[in-house]
Every structure is written in structure tokens, then in C-alpha cells.
């Protein structure tokens, strides 16, 4: 067919609001409004946590412990989503937990994704021995059970945000590196890169000005799809006792603390569980759509 795909430009506006098509047919899936709404709510919660939360997330009122959500028998109007075993307001913890989740995701993806991006570009562009060495490192990272590594690190350095971020970054970088490298390998063959080389641009300059902007879409898709991975990893490490230490309200920790009470106080674990599930579902569906929009060739995700 002679109809070429439109040049790939990243227009955020068009992403969210695609042009109406005569004939009513759309080439890709509809804009995922529900996931976008969920993500927006969570982002707003994270940004304005102190303003939105009715209580402090760590203040205990032991007398009010394990109150069910307001709409259930025995629930109190003061605690809309009920309280946990320390009498802390679950709604407030949930709101502040969104902040923790997003901070962890942001830091881990910046660190892990950034390293992956760098390694991928360098390995893919320079090739040769550099590529071999870096890719063997990536292989090693894949052969090494990642969660275990995170566990080891958490017990080595003590629990905390820093450890968690490092651990999760270590879990992420290899897959970023591998996929970005693949992308760079095909970019390297393209004319504009050859042209730049002919013009005498230095390798770092080509990587920065020609390669980087062109793998950015891929990178963004990877970042989106990996937000879920980070959130689940955080929760899993909390379960294994190597996550963010209490009393900081992380969703994973909230589930972990409440999991023994499913029989009698299900809301303690179920509510953050639903929050995680919704969030991960939303970012994944959004990421799937973004990938379809930006980079349909990305498949190994």
C-alpha cells in the first residue's frame, strides 16, 4: 500500500485528543479515559496529600482501631474508609500512600530507566566490545533473580526508601537496556545517523542529538508500562519484609500489615489492595495504548 504511516511525532495533545475521523473508524484503540481518570486521581492525591487527607497518616488512635468503613454497620463518619489496627485513618494512609508509590516509581524509573537508557544507547551505538561487555552484564542481570537481589540489598543496607529505590532500579535497568539497544541498532543503520557521522559529529553528540530523541518514544512507553512493575515490586518487598519500613504508609505495607485480618477486618488489606490493582491496571492499559500509538513495534513487554 502506498499509504505511508504519518511521520512519528510526539504530540501530547494529539495523543489525548485524536482528530475525529470521518466514517467513524479509528485506527487504534480509543483513548483510555477510565485509566487516565484513575491515574489523574492518584496523581492529584499524591500531589496534594497533606491537603486532602483528613488526618495524619501515622497518627494512632488505638481506641478507634479496626473500625469498618463509614457505610458499614459499626463504621464511623470520622473515618470514611475505616481504620487499621492502630486506629489510623485508612483514607489518609491511602492518600499519602499514593505519594509514596509515585515517589518510589519516579525515583526508581529515573534511576533504573535512566541507566538502562544510557547503557542501551551506548551499547547499541558503539557496538563491538563495549556492546558485548554491556550486554553480558545485562544477561547476568537477567539470570540473577531480581527480587532476591532486592531482598539481599534490603537486608544489607537496612530497610528504607533509598534501599528500595536502588533495589527496584537494579531490577529495571536490564530490560530497559536490552530494548533500547535493539531500537538503537536499527536507528544506527538509518541515513540521518550516517549523515551526521559523515558530517563529523562526535559519537557522544550523535547519541545525544540524534539517537536519544528517537528512542524517547520507546523509553516513554517502557516507563509507563514499568510503573506497574515498580508498584508491585514495592508491595512484594513489603510482604517479604524488605520494603518501606512502618509506619510510613505505603500501599504494599498496608496490604502486608492487614493480610492476616482478611477474615475479620477485610478493609485494612482489601482497600489498599484494590488501590494497587486499579493503579497498576490503569498504568498498564494506558501504557498498552501509548505503545500502540507511539511504537507498535515494541512487543517484548
Amino acid at each position, binding site marked *: 500500500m502506498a499509504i505511508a504511516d504519518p511521520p512519528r511525532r510526539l504530540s501530547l495533545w494529539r495523543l489525548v485528543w485524536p482528530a475525529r475521523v470521518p466514517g467513524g473508524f479509528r485506527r487504534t484503540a480509543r483513548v483510555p479515559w477510565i485509566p487516565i481518570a484513575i491515574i489523574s486521581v492518584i496523581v492529584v492525591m499524591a500531589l496534594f496529600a497533606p491537603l486532602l487527607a483528613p488526618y495524619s497518616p501515622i497518627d494512632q488512635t488505638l481506641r478507634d482501631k479496626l473500625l469498618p468503613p463509614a457505610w458499614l454497620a459499626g463504621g464511623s463518619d470520622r473515618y470514611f474508609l475505616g481504620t487499621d489496627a492502630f*486506629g489510623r485513618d485508612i483514607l489518609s494512609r491511602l492518600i499519602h500512600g499514593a505519594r509514596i508509590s509515585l515517589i518510589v516509581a519516579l525515583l526508581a524509573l529515573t534511576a533504573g530507566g535512566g541507566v538502562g537508557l544510557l547503557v542501551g544507547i551506548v551499547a547499541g551505538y558503539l557496538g563491538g566490545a563495549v556492546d558485548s561487555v554491556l550486554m553480558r552484564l545485562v544477561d547476568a542481570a537477567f539470570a540473577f533473580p531480581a527480587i532476591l537481589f532486592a531482598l539481599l540489598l534490603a537486608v544489607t543496607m537496612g530497610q528504607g526508601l533509598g534501599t528500595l529505590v536502588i533495589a527496584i532500579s537494579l531490577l529495571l535497568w536490564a530490560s530497559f537496556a536490552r530494548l533500547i539497544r535493539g531500537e538503537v541498532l536499527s536507528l544506527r543503520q538509518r541515513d540521518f545517523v550516517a549523515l551526521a557521522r559523515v558530517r563529523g559529529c562526535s559519537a557522544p553528540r550523535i547519541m545525544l542529538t540524534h539517537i536519544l530523541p528517537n528512542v524517547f518514544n520507546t523509553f516513554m512507553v517502557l516507563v509507563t508500562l514499568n510503573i506497574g512493575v515498580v508498584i508491585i515490586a514495592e508491595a512484594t518487598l513489603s510482604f517479604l519484609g524488605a520494603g518501606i519500613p512502618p509506619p510510613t504508609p505505603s500501599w504494599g505495607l498496608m496490604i502486608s500489615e492487614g493480610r*492476616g*485480618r482478611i477474615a*475479620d477486618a477485610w478493609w485494612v488489606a482489601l482497600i489498599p489492595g484494590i488501590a494497587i490493582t486499579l493503579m497498576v491496571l490503569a498504568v498498564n492499559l494506558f501504557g498498552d495504548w501509548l505503545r500502540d500509538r507511539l511504537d507498535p513495534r515494541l512487543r517484548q513487554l
Partner: protein
Amino acid sequence: MFRKIARVATLSVALVVAVTVPPHAQEQKGALVFAVESLGAQTLDPILEGRPGNAVYQAVMYDSLVGFDLEKGGVGPGVAERWELAPDGLAWTFYLRPGQTFHNGDKLTAHDVKFSLERQMGPNSLASAAASMRRTIKSIEVIEDLTVRVQTTSPQIGLPAGLSRAVAPEGAIMPKAYIERVGEEEFRKKPIGSGPWKFVRNVPGDRIEFTAVTTPHWRGRPQFKDLTILLVPEESTRVAMVRTGEAAIASIGPETMLGATRAGLEVLSVPGTMQAVFQFWGTYKPEVKDSPIAKVRVRQALSLAIDRQQVIEHVMNGKARRPHPFATFAYTDYFSADRWKKWADEAYRYDPVLAKKILAEEGYPNGFELKFANTALPGTQFMVNIGTAVADMWTKIGIKVTLKHYEWGSFAPLERNQGPLIGWASMYRTAGRPDAPWRYDGAFSPESIQRLLGDTDNCQEACQEYVKTARALGSELDKTKRTALTDRMVEVTANTWTVVPILEGMGYYAINTKQVGQFDAIAGRHELGDVFERIPRPEQKPWKK
């Protein structure tokens, strides 16, 4: 006196059995499945296993030289029915219960006892007390078939307790002839002991199976035919298994207790299994001199700020008690328990107003910053919860608490000479055991690991007083004087407020009443290894509703 207790105990057990059990129920049947959080090393060689593992599943098949006081929870008769100290304090003589046999039919004699103790002290032993046994035990002699004498290098008042399962696993009696005949390897594969349960199978990472002996046993003849101890690390799964009947009994924590009760399970609590405390690290050190926590009254104020009743009710779901002073329980030996109970109730009360007043008087009207380390042994998640609750209570009197979480294995003071935690408060836990001096020595002696009162370079007044008392206690043979010295030791340390108890905890078990009948655990013993043989079938003794 011990003999009397033993006789009474045996008689009463026999009586209970005779009264409640119709004759046909004498037959052993059914399987008792016990789900537990950890199987430790999961080895049945006593020299390779630490105390909790030994008490959970080795106790099932091995008897210990010294046993339990089933009523009170302290030390009582075991393989030895009585023991006595030589007048000079340098030897203990143990008189063994006659008629005991190993599972292969061999008679249990003084030779086995000597062999077992020497094996525990041997170079391959991982027993935690192996080193101190090597240091304190001079020789072990077989006097006659059922009499064995242990010579010590210095008076060892605590020796019988140390050879009791109430304290340590080092008293487990192994079959000399059998091990010498088949070798260690084979023994580890097919271990035999003299307990009321015989070894059947050990599946690493999953379970250990036993079957009941068919002959009468002094610990009691099992009512069930088989016993399986299952490893189920996840607590919610353990409870689920009890609910579905896949397990009859499961160890649980206070978090799950409420749910288990609401789900119709019986919850058994064993009092006095441990004490939760907070303690201050290195308060004697020159570099901590200007820190608020270097002041005794500030430390006391922090104690006053803790609403222990709230913690007991809400964190421990009511299944805990107000504590005695540090590392003491109602069953502690040579100790005026009642007096100290009264004292503790007063001293460990909740008085935030007074706490604030003291802080103001000491120059901290607006509180101060306190670093607080929260830590818990694997399987004691509630310790973290207690620490979290305590931190919140301190916050409420104006102290800015920085709560830092430590995983037990990397908990610094044990590891790196206290360094990183100097000037910190931390959570800690002490197991329930009847010999207070042992535990005090580990915490307060200037040579100890924790050395909470002072090290060898900085041993001030309270520290010196402690050292003096502890030394006197070590060689005191008279029981009355011993009690006085213990009380003195407790007094000296309690008044420093460097270690402050929060509550006396319990062991908890969720029980499916359709699978087992009513039973009691041994006070102070979290583990059920010495209890299974006394657990009736449900039709023999149903739980009271």
C-alpha cells in the same frame, strides 16, 4: 521435694486420664497436625539445632535431662527425677528416673547422659552454650547406672536450669550405643530418642512426621497415633489451614488472633513467653553525656508516657500482661515475684502529665529528638507494632521520634559493638526463662554484648553495683540469700531505667476444636514440643464453649 512434685504431677495426669477417658478411647488414633512458622534447621540432631527448633520438634522425640514444672512453668523433673548440689558447690549429681528406654529398646542410663552432654560440648556442636559448657564443666562421671555427676570449675547454680528445655536444648538425651554403632550420619537420617513420639520422616522444607510410642511414658502417653509438624511460613495461610481442618493447631501472632476467634477457632494463649522492652544504648558513654537520654529521669519519663494498657488491649488484643521488671516472670527462680509485681504496677504506670513535668524540669519542655530503632525477630511482627505504638505515644508528649526499622539480622548492636546505635532507644525482646541472672549478665555485664550499664572503661556507680551483686550471686548457694541478691540485682538495674519493660507477652495458638480437645500449654514455653503427648482427642475432652 522435686520427687514429690513429679509424683503429684504423674498422679494427677493419670487421674485426669482415668476420669475423662472411657476405656475404649485408650487406643491411639488419628493424626495431630501442627502448623508452625519455622522449623529452624529442621534437623533432628540436637547438637545442630538452637533452642526454638529444639523445643518445637526435637522435644517431641527427645527427653531432656531436666524437665518442666508443668504448673508454674519453671524447671521440673525430666530424665533426672531429682538432682543435688555438692556442699562445695562444685558438682551436681543427677538421679535418673528408672525404666526409661530409647525407641529401639535400649535402656536409657547414665552413660547416655554423659555421652549426650559431652556431645553437646564437642567441637562439632552448634549448641549456643557449647562454649560456656566447655569452660564451666570440668568432667562428667557415671557414678552408677542411673546416677551421673557433673563436676564444674566454679559453682554453677544455674546448671540444672541450663540443662532443662525450659532454658536451653543442651539437656536432650541421645542414645550412646546407637550413635556409636551406626555413626552420626545414619543417626541424623534415622534418629531415635526416648520421648513419647518416634521419628518417622523428615521432609526438608515441608514437615516432620512422628508416631506415638505405644507403651506408657512418664511425659504422658499420646492420644493421637500420628503427629505431623508442618512448616507454613505465612501466617494467614496457617490460620486458613486450621479453619479448613488441614491443620489442628497453628502458631499465630496477636494480629491474627481476633480473626481466628471470630472465625470460630479456639485461641490458646501461653502466658509469660516473652517480655517486650525498650532499652537505651550506651547511655554511659562520654559522647552521649549531653544527650537527654543520658538522664535517668528522662528515661523514666519516657516509660511513664507509655500507656501499656492501650498497647496490651489494642496491639496485643488483650492477650498480654503488665510486666514484671526486666527479664523476670512469675516463675523466675529465687525471686520475690509478688513484691516486684506490685512494684512494677506502680513504676510502669501511665502518667503523661508527670512525664511532661519531668521533661520540663530536666530542661526539655518542648521535648527533644529521639532516635528509635524498631526491630523484630523473624516471626514476631507484633514487636514492630508495639514499637510503632510506643513511638506514637512518645510523639504525643512532644518528643520528635525518628523511627528506624531494622531487620533483625542486621540489627547493629549485636553486630558492631553497639557503634551505630549509641544514644538510641530500641525495641528488644527477651524470652521467657526462669533464670534471671543469666539474662542479666548478657544485658548488663561490662563484658557482655549489650553492656547497657557500662563497659569495662566506663563502669560507673550503678554498673559497679551490678557487677558486685552479680558476682556475689554467682557463688551464693543459700536460697534465701540468693533470692535477696537477685532482688538486689533487679532493683539496681530497674532504677537505672536503661531497660524498661513494656509488657509480658504470650504465645498464641489457633485451634480447630473439631480436631483436638482441650489442653493447656506449659507456662512460659511458647513451643509445644513438650505438650503434644498431653493433647486429647476432641471426643475425650471437648473445649468448653
